[in-house]
């Protein structure tokens, strides 16, 4: 317990978290500080490429593990299952309509890649290793949750249902393609490839992450400011409780898979995190009647900061405890 608190305390005064807080405060205070859209997208391309490449290179070093396949399957199942739990919790805890509840549920089954990145950077600074293929697991967890949510809705006779175009958009979503593509490149070129571009993808990584989180703080703050109305206590409570529930589901899977402490922490973080890029876009197409300010505010304004500050230390402490790391 003290450990968690110490870690959470350390975590809280890291440049990464403080950069997020700076953005959040600046937006709340209505400063005109802003990061251009192109720069935000450029940083996200950098982060996805770097994290994917490093995962692949680490896989190349440690060899393909039989658990890779099982981990991928576990990721898909987690992503598909979590929306059902989230949906049930939302129906109990909040007054959201079926449509809004299903849309929110999709976000929690899917993952937030920045939360993943932030977790890996905590692990790295603590010297805790994790399986390189967790990057591929992250990619595998992006989409299944969307299908679960659409199925939940179609059961009610609503929703548009999937067309071929939407399928392609979800599966060939830019961030999935880049993450997996960089992973494959990293795996193919291995440590040699990593040595060539290490100075680009490793040394400045944390600094870029700071500026990216500054931007995310700004976006989250702007969202919170204009969406205060939707944050009823029930909805807020869900935004904090759901990641913990998700992380426990991830922990169960990690134990079943026999992951390392670091890998278990990552799978917990993935399960706990909520998408705010790929899933919102899919929801706008498939469930346009669902209110975007609910799911965006929850995912980016509540759950993301919770995971960043308290969640990651908690999940890491739990993972270390249960895997006996």
């Amino acid at each position, binding site marked *: 317990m003290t450990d968690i608190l110490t870690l959470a305390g350390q975590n809280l005064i890291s440049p990464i978290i403080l950069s997020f807080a700076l953005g959040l405060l600046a937006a709340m205070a209505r400063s005109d500080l*802003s*990061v251009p*859209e192109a720069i935000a997208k450029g940083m996200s391309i950098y982060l996805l490429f770097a994290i994917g490449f490093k995962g692949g290179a680490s896989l190349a070093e440690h060899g393909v593990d039989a658990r890779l396949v099982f981990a991928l399957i576990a990721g898909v199942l987690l992503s598909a299952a979590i929306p059902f739990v989230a949906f049930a919790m939302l129906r109990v805890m909040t007054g959201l309509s079926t449509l809004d509840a299903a849309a929110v549920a999709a976000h929690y089954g899917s993952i937030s890649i920045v939360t993943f990145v932030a977790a890996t950077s905590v692990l790295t600074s603590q010297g805790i290793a994790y399986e390189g293929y967790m990057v591929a697991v992250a990619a595998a967890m992006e989409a299944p949750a969307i299908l679960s949510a659409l199925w939940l809705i179609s059961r009610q006779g609503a929703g*548009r249902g999937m067309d071929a*175009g939407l399928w392609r958009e979800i599966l060939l979503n830019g961030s999935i393609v880049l993450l997996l593509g960089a992973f494959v490149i990293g795996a193919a070129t291995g440590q040699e490839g990593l040595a060539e571009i290490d100075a680009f993808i490793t040394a400045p990584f944390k600094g870029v992450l700071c500026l990216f989180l500054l931007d995310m703080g700004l976006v989250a703050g*702007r969202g919170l400011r204009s969406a205060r109305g939707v944050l009823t206590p029930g909805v807020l409570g869900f935004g904090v409780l759901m990641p913990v529930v998700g992380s426990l589901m991830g922990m169960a899977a990690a134990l079943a898979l026999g992951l390392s402490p670091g890998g278990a922490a990552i799978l917990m973080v993935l399960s706990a995190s909520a998408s*705010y*890029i790929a899933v919102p876009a899919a929801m706008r*197409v498939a469930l*346009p009647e669902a209110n975007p300010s609910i799911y965006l505010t929850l995912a980016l304004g509540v759950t993301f900061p919770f995971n960043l500050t308290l969640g990651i230390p908690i999940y890491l402490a739990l993972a270390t405890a249960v895997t006996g790391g």
Partner: protein
Amino acid sequence: MQTHQAKRVEIIIEAVMERRLTEVLVEAGVTGFTVLPVSGGSGRSGQWTREGQVGRSGMVAVVCLIRPDRLEGLLQAVFRVVNRHIGVVSVTDCEVLRAERF
């Protein structure tokens, strides 16, 4: 200069729907359109800005110049896409140079 009557249709629609809209335009026999970026706005679903956004959020403006007799078909096609989505459609009378292009 000789000009020709035409209609200028301006569709402000969510960026995620851009591809679907332009596909429908092409199906409806539209020979050309132009997409302009939009940096922010406000409507019944609140105010938004594109600043710092990472995903394909926000709106785009699609401008389409067409011969008046094609308007009805175009609007019907557009309506199918816009119907369930946020966004606005306006039509203005205009004159164009080089009518053979429309």
